């Protein structure tokens, strides 16, 4: 009786173990399958023409889209990061626990995080593009993206701040530091890795977004000419790399170039992630005055 029990349990454990192995294997296989497929098809097609400064229908250069992607992501994050982190700091460090307002903001952010990006696109179209008269533009796209990633940044920063042990805050207050110094010199540096994680997530969404941008940023494959137009260039329509990929793929005329573009997008995302992580390490180990 006892023997058969132990036997059955061992069998169950073995089954569970194999299911877990199987799931892991499958996940890894799918991941590497996709990566390998894109790389195999894309890398041989990485031709110099793809990186020409000017886009033409013949060379389908990704360069303008590449630059636009960086511009629009940088602009979106410039808006969303300070706002998101600021809001999270307020919610965690300043607002009183159990405050009604805090709960409403938190619930709203959670809901907004789950909304499909096309809804943000629609909002951007109605508000920035039409109501504010920004037309399809870099600015309208960046603001739409900023609104889209704001809840992501806010929520992850909140989690990161909540994960900072209270003992650090007590130690800081106990030394006579005010709330401002406690937050900026003690809590934030400790939370930086988590916050950067959120920013990376947001960055990834900005770089990979198409739906929200089609109706707000447009799909003109040109870099806004800041040199000639100055500030007005912000209101030129732009096409990002992801949009570019979408357009190429849906046209179906340049399959090889499409894969090559996908490789570039992939490398861009990986580089940005690595860069952000490196930056996080530097910031996290805080050393005032060297």
């Amino acid at each position, binding site marked *: 009786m006892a023997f058969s029990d132990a036997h059955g349990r061992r069998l169950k454990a073995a089954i569970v173990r194999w299911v877990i192995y199987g799931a892991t294997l499958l996940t890894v296989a799918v991941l590497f399958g996709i990566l390998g497929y894109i790389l195999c098809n894309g890398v041989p097609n990485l031709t110099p023409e793809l990186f020409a400064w000017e886009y033409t229908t013949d060379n389908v250069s990704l360069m303008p889209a590449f630059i636009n992607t960086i511009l629009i992501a940088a602009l979106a994050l410039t808006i969303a990061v300070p706002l998101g982190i600021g809001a999270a700091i307020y919610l965690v460090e300043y607002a*009183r*626990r159990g405050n009604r307002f805090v709960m409403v903001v938190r619930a709203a952010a959670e809901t907004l995080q789950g909304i499909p990006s096309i809804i943000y696109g629609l909002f951007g179209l109605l508000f920035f593009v039409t109501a504010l008269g920004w037309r399809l533009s870099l600015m309208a796209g960046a603001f739409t993206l900023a609104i889209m990633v704001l809840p992501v940044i806010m929520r992850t920063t909140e989690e990161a701040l909540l994960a900072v*042990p209270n*003992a*650090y*805050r*007590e*130690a*800081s*207050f*106990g*030394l*006579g*530091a*005010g709330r401002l*110094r406690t937050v900026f*010199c*003690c809590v934030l*540096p*400790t939370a930086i890795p988590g916050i950067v994680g959120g920013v990376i997530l947001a960055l990834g969404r900005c770089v990979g977004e198409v739906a929200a941008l089609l109706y707000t940023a447009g799909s003109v494959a040109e870099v806004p000419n800041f040199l000639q137009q100055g500030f007005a260039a912000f209101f030129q329509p732009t096409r990002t790399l992801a949009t570019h990929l979408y357009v190429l793929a849906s046209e179906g005329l340049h399959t090889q170039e499409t894969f090559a573009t996908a490789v570039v997008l992939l490398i861009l995302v990986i580089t940005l992630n690595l860069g952000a992580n490196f930056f996080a390490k530097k910031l996290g*180990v*805080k*050393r*005032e*005055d060297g």
Partner: protein
Amino acid sequence: MAKLEYHSEQKASPKMSVKDLNLYYKDFQALKSVNLDFPAHQVTALIGPSGCGKSTLLKCLNRMNDLVAGCQITGTVFLDGQDAYKEVNVNDLRRRVGMVFQQPNPFPMSIYDNIAFGPRTHGIKSRSDLDVIVEQSLRSAALWDELKDRLKKNALSLSGGQQQRLCIARALAVKPEVLLMDESTAALDPISTAKIEELVGELKDSYTIIMVTHNMLQARRVSDRTAFFLLGEMVEMGPTEILFSRPREKRTASYVSGEFG
């Protein structure tokens, strides 16, 4: 009238004192009209069973209770005769009344930055001044020889005992007048504990020390005066030797003889 008595009883005026202190966490009364003096340059131990309000009283002395939602206080806390809640800026109070916690809580930064955190908070920026303070503080906490070559290392890489002494050094770095220690040896091994007890003996020449401890032997070893608490009340206060050998109150007697608690 009451004030007169209090002065005649205590010849030198105390460094800190507490008058008719009541403290409520929401509806729960954690301290019941506590009256207590803490003479300068003495070690005062607070003893009593768990939950009797020792930590709560300690946190009133540097207003860490301000951070607890729903915590309300009546009565007065004096520091050098000034009302700590009305006449002293709270950040100033916490600089003058430093605190060492039960669990070592160094910041996740270098040893140097940990100690420099307080002085920097209070406006000391010059590197050479900070260097001097860091060395002095580490020396006072008997850590300098152990750590002088590792100032750039992360404080979290130290042992528990070293971390706690680092926290003492960090508290000393802002040149406090009073040092509050809440069971600061409870998480440490006997050797680290002995080092910290020895340290307390040395520090009392320069500081007024108030410590919470569960260890009655420790209270006897290091303190000059002891106060016994029970259920939020201060039952008895006196010179340590007398409180342990000839307590006035029966409740004190049964606690110090180990009958309960």
